[in-house]
């Protein structure tokens, strides 16, 4: 019996999703090496080890078992987000992590996944998805952690929660009319956000991005320019690994975390960087493929949430590096240096694979009947 299940497990294992994620991590390893140091890259390897441990550990459980615990997880992480505001360590004036020795534990990296699970649990028991109240309660699920993350203050990570909400509610079949109703609500809350939650430097960044001539945040403008120069000097073929002038002269801000994509673009050039983007695309489309195939609506919902999370994160990060979005401090999943973000990405990957595997089991079970 065990062997049989294992065979099924392997059979449902989505190698495209898994392989592209591994490829991205490998690329991340080498460019962290180039941008920061060998030691940094090997530390990332340790994070990968921890992440893979959790990856396989989580695979043993049925994802439904995890979804059932979603509310508890949600409460735990909301408490962690509150606690980090008071007890967390400080990086450049923001409080967003706990020091756990090996890893800096950053609750905001994990709340994204927890939100996906909690929304899935909330939406799975609803028989009528078209009610406006369901939309509003789902929104509340997203707004609460978002506000807490804004207070750290971390604008970017907080905003990633919105696409997750939109995508999941959208796929369950909420009325478009109701979505349109959210727009005026957004206009009402936007000034509140602007005046109460954003710090001066964040306002300066947004203004600086929208109206560059008005900006006082010269640092951000300079970083944007240096990033553009790095990408531009990559040209078609790149300057070679560890050969990028911009990277090696440290003209890039956060070259091994938020701006690692600029390093790749400079040292690898357009052709290979295009390949990296294709890997990301393969990962996302593979996940969407599982979502399309699976017969379990809950599993599909989870996958759509994760697709929204990854896509928006990839898009916002690359758009920032490419100078078409403000500098918000979002890193590139699987590639950027960082324990919390890598481990949370691997946990998300575990869930994706999990849905794929269990779906096969459901299918075979039905086949026996």
């Amino acid at each position, binding site marked *: 019996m065990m062997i049989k299940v294992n065979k099924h497990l392997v059979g449902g294992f989505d190698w495209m999703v898994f392989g592209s994620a591994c490829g991205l991590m490998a690329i991340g390893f080498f460019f962290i090496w180039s941008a*920061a*140091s060998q030691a940094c890259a090997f530390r990332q390897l340790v994070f990968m080890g921890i992440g893979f441990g959790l990856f396989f550990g989580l695979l043993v459980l049925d994802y439904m078992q995890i979804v059932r615990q979603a509310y508890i997880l949600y409460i735990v992480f909301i408490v962690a987000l509150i606690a980090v505001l008071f007890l967390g360590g400080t990086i450049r004036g923001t409080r967003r992590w706990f020091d756990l020795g090996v890893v800096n534990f950053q609750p905001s990296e994990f709340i994204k996944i927890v939100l996906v699970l909690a929304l899935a649990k909330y939406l799975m028991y609803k028989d009528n998805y078209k009610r406006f109240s369901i939309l509003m309660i789902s929104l509340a699920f997203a707004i609460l952690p978002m506000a807490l993350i804004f207070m750290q203050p971390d604008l970017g990570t907080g905003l990633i929660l919105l696409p997750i909400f939109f*995508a999941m509610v*959208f*796929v369950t*079949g909420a009325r478009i009319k109701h979505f349109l109703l959210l727009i005026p609500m957004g206009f009402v809350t936007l000034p509140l956000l602007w005046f109460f939650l954003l710090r001066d430097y964040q306002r300066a960044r947004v203004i600086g991005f929208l109206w560059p001539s008005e900006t006082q945040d*010269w*640092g951000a*403008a*300079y*970083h944007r*320019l240096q990033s*553009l*120069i*790095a*990408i*531009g*000097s*990559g*040209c*078609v073929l790149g300057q070679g690994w560890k*050969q990028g*002038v911009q990277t*090696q*002269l*440290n003209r890039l801000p956060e070259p091994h975390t938020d701006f690692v994509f600029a390093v790749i*673009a400079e040292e690898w*050039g*357009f052709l290979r*960087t*295009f390949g990296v*983007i294709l890997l*990301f*695309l393969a990962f*996302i*489309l593979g996940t*969407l493929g599982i*979502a*399309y195939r699976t017969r379990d*609506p809950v599993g*599909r919902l989870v996958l*759509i949430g994760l*697709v*929204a999370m990854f*896509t928006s994160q990839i*898009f916002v990060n*690359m*758009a920032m590096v*490419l*100078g*078409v979005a403000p500098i918000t401090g979002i890193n590139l999943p699987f590639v950027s240096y960082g324990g919390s973000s890598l481990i949370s990405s691997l946990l998300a990957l575990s869930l994706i694979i999990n849905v794929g595997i269990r779906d096969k089991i459901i299918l075979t079970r039905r086949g026996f009947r």
Partner: protein
Amino acid sequence: MYSNRLKIIFGLVIASFTVLVVRLGYLQIFEGAKYSGISQKRLLRDYSVPARRGNIYDCRGRPLAVEEPAFDIVVDYKNILYGYLRDKGEMPQSLSQLKAHRDLSAGCDSCHVDTGLWVTKLANLLDSAPRQLLGQAEETVNRVEKIKEQVQLRHKKTVRIQEEFASHAIAKDVPLQKAAVFEMDQDSYPGVSLRTRPKRYYPYNDTASHILGYLGRPTPEEMHKAKSAIQRSDEEYKKSQNYKDLSPSSELADYRIGRAGVEGYYDSDLTGDPGRRVEVISLQTLKVDKTIFDMPPRHGDGVFLTIDLDVQRLAEECLGETKGSIVVMGTHTGEILAMASYPRFNPNTLGADYNKLIKDPDTPLLNRPTQALLPPGSTFKIVTALTALAEGKIDLNTHFYCSGSITVGEFKFRCTSAHGPVDLKRAIEHSCNVYFFETAKRLDGRAIKEWTEKFGFGSETGVDLPYEASGDVPLPRYPGERINVSIGQGALVVTPLQMTQLASAVANSGIMVRPHLLKKIVADDDATVRKVEAPELREIDIPKEHFPAVQEALRQVVISGTARGKGLEELGVAGKTGTAQTGSSDKNHAWFVGYIPFDAPRYAFCVVVEHTTGHGGEVAGPITRKLVSGILDIEKADKLLTAKRTAGTPK
């Protein structure tokens, strides 16, 4: 329903990835050449725009340190290279090197004939040997070619670097007249131009030189700190060291850093933040095509000092050419009006004088008021008296009999004369040692040390100058040591500023002020006040009733005591003389520490002449008289002026 909405999600994913790829392709394929630095048409130049250093003013706004233009003669790199090659009479090491330069200037072949001639012409103009200019040229060529070589090694192909398009200084600090002559005849020097560069100038030369300090060249670490106006971590710094030759080295060639005095202490306020500019240069015309980043510099702030230039010059004049210090300080505020030290240096010629100055045995670079450590002599009896009063070991009626000396154990300690029966007031007035010896016997060593420290001795006063000395308060264990300390001898050493602080504490009946030099920091551009220094007070826990007796005694000192007949009585002075032994039998430090006016003190002061043959009152007394009458004259003139001004202004 699901599959339809899934398709929309799929569409959104494809759309966002398409946007990213298009943007990436645009940057790397279409705009790539512009940014890559190896383009054949355009080149990026990234450099910092220096911020103007703030001025230093006295309390009435008279400039004590200002930025003045200095003139450098700069020559285009191309011409430097030709001059250098012509002089060597050799072909360049690599043919491609010359070819690259020739290609570059194909547009102006006509002027190439005499590109190397600037050397002789400039040498004539500047009355200097052509060899000297050529030496500078060689240095420049070596530097630039080395950078170029490294860049080419990295790119594995021939490139042009920004240094090749810049002009480099060949003669620095050209006198104004020469600069003017050059300016008029500039057309006959192709490729040569005049560049102005800010230079620090101290209009009053050696006046207040120790307070103002001077500027110096930064160390590599400081240089890096200045370069990274946009923050970088230490780890990143170490890494960038491997590539440092790549960054434009001329960028911060004129960067200076405050090394001493106010220039050093308030360096970050005075320096401001450099701006940054990134320009696209067209290689065809060698002109700036477009500025793509232009962050203006934040100019340095002006620093207003509490120093009154009039009082400062008066104090320096009073000191004359004797080694010593004078400090004048507001008793209530701690504002230092004057702080004179002799010998001094001239910060305008410091570069040339430096080697001589550091070898001078009289240490002219030492700011004596805050850095000289001297035994205070009898002036310290003020502290001994207040300590004994506070500890309750003596009162105003306590009398001791002075027979001219006292024997403790096998040592005999002498007094200045036989004073007979003396109480505290008479003891201070006539500086009777025996009285304080007897007092010291009653005190224990720990109490002496503790109270001495409460008056600010043994620690820095916190004055806003770098490298202040803290002095030393020993713990007197044996009776002999206690006796020595009670009259300011032995291992106890203090700075003149600490003694001034003591004088103000007595004048204020126990309230200590922190001496300071800063009045306010004001933006030089728009006069926005950034910081105003407020007085910092600290009360010593001695009952107030102990002070009047000491204050009266200090007044008696100038009427009938050790400083009588020096003209100090008429000027309203109260104070204490001191003659501190120095080790060599015929040399003393002559002190006078006090405040004016005795009944409503405004200024505390300290006069000390080091290594003199005379006694405290004899040497420091006349200096004090000149100083105090000068201060009162300045005050009077001031009042007259303000009275006139208020009368002149209509109501």
